[in-house]
């Protein structure tokens, strides 16, 4: 697999959220607003890149039997640093995300990439993999939060995470009388997630069906050619 493929894998083909079902706890919980989604996404990207780099650096000196505890300690340390930074510089984000910031430690994406990629590849590739997977995760969060926020409040807005009073942009998309507020609730989270996962599965099914059809047509053409040659 070349570098470009490896980088883009996280977006659709191996999308960690909607096709591998990794890290869905936080996805379902925090995608009520665009602000939360971007804040969480950036925090996960930061942890993922750093953990991939560190684990890749120590991959040759880590004894195989205790590698999982070692990875967990590395990840927990990084998450604690990020949590302290968020608390200090983006207090509004800290209250909005709450317990889900420390819970990045147990986000399966991070441990999953450490185990399946960073422990086998060099530092540069691991950092790239972390960025790609992290961006795939963040895109999934953004898509879901935009859908949920627009349907439940009718407004799409984004405030400066470092200064909660400063609004960066705000549009009203759906008039106030037509919003469905249940999309803010757990019900909306599950339904939105199910529909997006089904859409991705449908897209993949269609793609494989097309590829199979093409393969069959090719085989038929070859068989016809072989017959003619006889």
């Amino acid at each position: 697999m070349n570098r470009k493929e490896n980088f883009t894998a996280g977006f659709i083909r191996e999308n960690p959220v909607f096709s591998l079902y990794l890290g869905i706890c936080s996805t379902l919980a925090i995608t009520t607003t665009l602000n939360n989604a971007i804040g969480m996404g950036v925090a996960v990207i930061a942890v993922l890149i750093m953990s991939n780099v560190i684990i890749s650096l120590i991959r040759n000196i880590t004894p195989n039997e205790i590698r999982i505890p070692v990875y967990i300690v590395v990840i927990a340390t990084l998450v604690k640093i990020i949590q302290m930074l968020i608390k200090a510089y983006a207090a509004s984000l800290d209250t909005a995300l709450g317990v889900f910031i420390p819970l990045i430690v147990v986000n399966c994406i991070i441990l999953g990439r450490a185990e399946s990629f960073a422990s086998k590849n060099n530092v540069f590739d691991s950092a790239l993999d972390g960025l790609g997977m992290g961006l795939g995760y963040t895109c999934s969060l953004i898509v879901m939060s935009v859908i949920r926020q627009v349907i439940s409040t009718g407004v799409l807005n984004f405030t400066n995470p470092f200064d909660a009073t400063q609004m960066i942009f705000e549009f009203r998309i759906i008039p106030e009388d037509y919003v469905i507020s249940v999309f803010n609730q757990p019900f909306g989270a599950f339904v939105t997630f199910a529909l997006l996962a089904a859409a991705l599965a449908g897209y993949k099914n269609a793609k494989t069906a097309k590829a199979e059809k093409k393969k069959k047509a090719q085989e038929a053409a070859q068989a016809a050619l072989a017959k003619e040659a006889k």
Partner: protein
Amino acid sequence: MDIGNLFTIFVTAVLINNVILNQFLGMCPFMGVSKKSSSAIGMGGAVTFVIVAAAIVTYGLYHGVLAPLHIEYMDLITFILVIASLVQLTEMIIKKTSPSLYKALGVYLPLITTNCAVLMVALENIKQGYDFAEMLTYSFAIPIGFTLVLYIFSTIRERLDAAKTPAAFRGNPIALIVAAMMALAFSGLMGLV
């Protein structure tokens, strides 16, 4: 000790703030081991043991070691190591006592380490400033809520296997739709406390 207060904590944690349907924690086993009701019960038992044991140990460590030494920032690292060792212990116990359950749970058994509910309970006990009795009640109530929802969900999924579903919805997406319906039903209990 105030029994009414403990009862409120219990009901809130089991039904109103249900760990799966309302806080979205422990989704991996929720999707992974909910295909058969027998393994759902086994998983619920294992998670209950790990959560209660981890809560007691982390609570003791925090108030006995971390707080007196003023190194509270070490909480995440300490807690996750305690949880990982307890999961390893549970795995060994189940492997010895019930090989069939061990097989049924498969990879989801070691994955209890990364079950967010375990770490959440440990962190929440500290954050809410619970005393020992409240801590015990809360740590029991959360896995009971988890097991209850996991069991209900697994019985629905057993039926779902026989149902006709569109190709794109087969497997997890339709299960998530069911979870959405359950979340809607549970949100009706909101006014209970």
